[in-house]
């Protein structure tokens, strides 16, 4: 982790510590919590897409598995919420492991299609197995309880997610600056160069796909517990695209870009509410503008500009 990463992490930590003194409104608190949740999913997705260069158009499917594991297992089978969360992540990990080998042999648009298909299959299963999932209407999710503590108030959620977010940022920064992370970035930069230097390319792709999927699943569980009610739309294609857009706008292969992308795209629809009926258009225009003027994403572009001046 270099100096700028350490400064970035300190700034994030400071902001998260100061926010409780500034935010009094429960509407904004809810928004911040959703930003935090998205930021962690996007971090995991960025490791796969931005750093390792493997596209996934089905990540919302993994979010959906986690969310419904946390809804179904405690409700229908009496599991503890924590066990359900872990079971969801393990199941997602195994599913990702099984599909990863054939899928990750594909490249470019073929990989995009395969992951898209996987996401859609998960979405269809969740929609149709209505005796367990409640079908399109969804189902309520019990409170998250672990070790005798139950997370009920929004402030409890805030601190839990603050801890998870800071840990995720720290761990991601460590990871990309390690032998493992360098191998991931190398296979993105030149797969053939990575191979001849001894990187088992397939294994690395599989591992990061599984990690990224399990991360999405865990955050799906968290989302379900936080909102208290879940519908299959959490796993649908538009949600996958939304997550991917956060990666791209914030900055591919940028840890802090993931955070910025998630904050921006979660908050922007709210900020644009005053456009009253035109918000979708303005939202689209901002995205197009970002991609035209900052094709590498917000954080990498601004960082490069800053470095040139300073």
């Amino acid at each position, binding site marked *: 982790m270099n100096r700028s990463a350490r400064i970035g992490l300190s700034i994030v930590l400071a902001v998260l510590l100061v926010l409780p003194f500034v935010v009094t409104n429960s509407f904004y608190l809810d928004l911040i919590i959703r930003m935090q949740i998205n930021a962690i999913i996007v971090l995991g997705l960025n490791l796969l897409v931005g750093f390792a260069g493997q596209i996934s158009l089905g990540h919302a499917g993994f979010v959906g598995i986690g969310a419904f594991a946390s809804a179904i297992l405690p409700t229908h089978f009496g599991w503890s919420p924590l066990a359900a969360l872990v079971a969801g992540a393990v199941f997602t990990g195994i599913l990702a492991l099984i599909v990863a080998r054939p899928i990750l042999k594909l490249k470019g648009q073929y990989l995009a299609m395969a992951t898209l298909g996987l996401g859609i299959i998960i979405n269809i299963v969740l929609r149709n197995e209505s005796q367990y999932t409640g079908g399109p209407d969804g189902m309520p999710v019990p409170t998250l309880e672990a070790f005798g503590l139950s997370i009920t108030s929004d402030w409890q959620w805030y601190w839990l997610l603050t801890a998870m977010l800071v840990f995720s940022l720290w761990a991601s920064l460590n990871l990309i600056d390690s032998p493992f992370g360098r191998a991931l970035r190398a296979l993105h930069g030149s797969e*053939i160069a990575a191979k001849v230097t001894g990187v088992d390319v397939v294994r690395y792709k599989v591992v990061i796909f599984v990690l990224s999927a399990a991360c999405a699943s865990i955050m799906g569980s968290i989302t379900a517990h936080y909102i208290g009610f879940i519908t299959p739309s959490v796993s649908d294609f538009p949600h996958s695209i939304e997550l991917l857009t956060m990666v791209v706008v914030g900055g591919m292969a940028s840890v802090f870009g993931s955070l910025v992308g998630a904050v921006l795209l979660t908050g922007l629809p709210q900020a644009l509410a005053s456009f009253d009926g035109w918000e979708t258009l303005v939202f689209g225009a901002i995205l197009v503008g970002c991609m035209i003027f900052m094709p590498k994403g917000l954080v990498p572009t601004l960082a490069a500009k800053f470095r040139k001046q300073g």
Partner: protein
Amino acid sequence: MNLLEVSNLSISFGGVKAVQDVSFSVPAGTIYSVIGPNGAGKTTLFNLITGIYTPDHGAIRLQGENIVGKAPNQLAALGMARTFQNLQICSNMSAIENVMVGAHLRLNRNLVKAALRFPSIRRRDLELREEAAQLMRFVGLERFLDSDADSMPYGALKRLEIARALAMQPRVVFLDEPAAGLNPRETEEVAQLVRRVAESGVTVVLVEHDMKMVMALSDRILVMEYGRKLTEGTAEEVRTNPDVIAAYLGGHA
């Protein structure tokens, strides 16, 4: 003892017999060159030996062990390194990180320990950065220690590939046209670098079009034409061989 023994190696792509029945052996500690006109099958030969292609026939032995069918990353573990005629640089990384990737197999690659910033992994990474910096100095890239790979000129990237290959601490390194596209001064520098690599104990197999460099450096030379072995010998033997002259200049000698 021969480090590398290639016997009766063949591969066809459709109707094109790119490499046909080629045999040769490379003694340890030498500089061995492969030359031939464009399209003679030199790069294909490299790709066969380094595991990018699987041969239709033939055997390749590295220190006596048959390595046909092994993947490139397995060959890397056996001490085989290479560079590419068309650069294979990770342009999304810094120059020094490109070199550090070369040391991949010598490192602890544990994901969990890396994410949790275990001191042992950090310490090894700091040592490695110093090693990589020394290698960059060795190949003459001290100017680019803090550069991103995508901001470096072509000639420097050629050397960066050599530094990355050396970071693997290989037994044998395959250099595919290290001087291609370089000016005469740069070519001379690369020639000196290749000699220093060989002197450091690494066997060098070289594909190169610059005849001055090949003749000056090589202990032995393999000449290929139309996918076949035309002849093999010392620089002097090859230079005076009438078949070689015919292959390069055309006509019947």
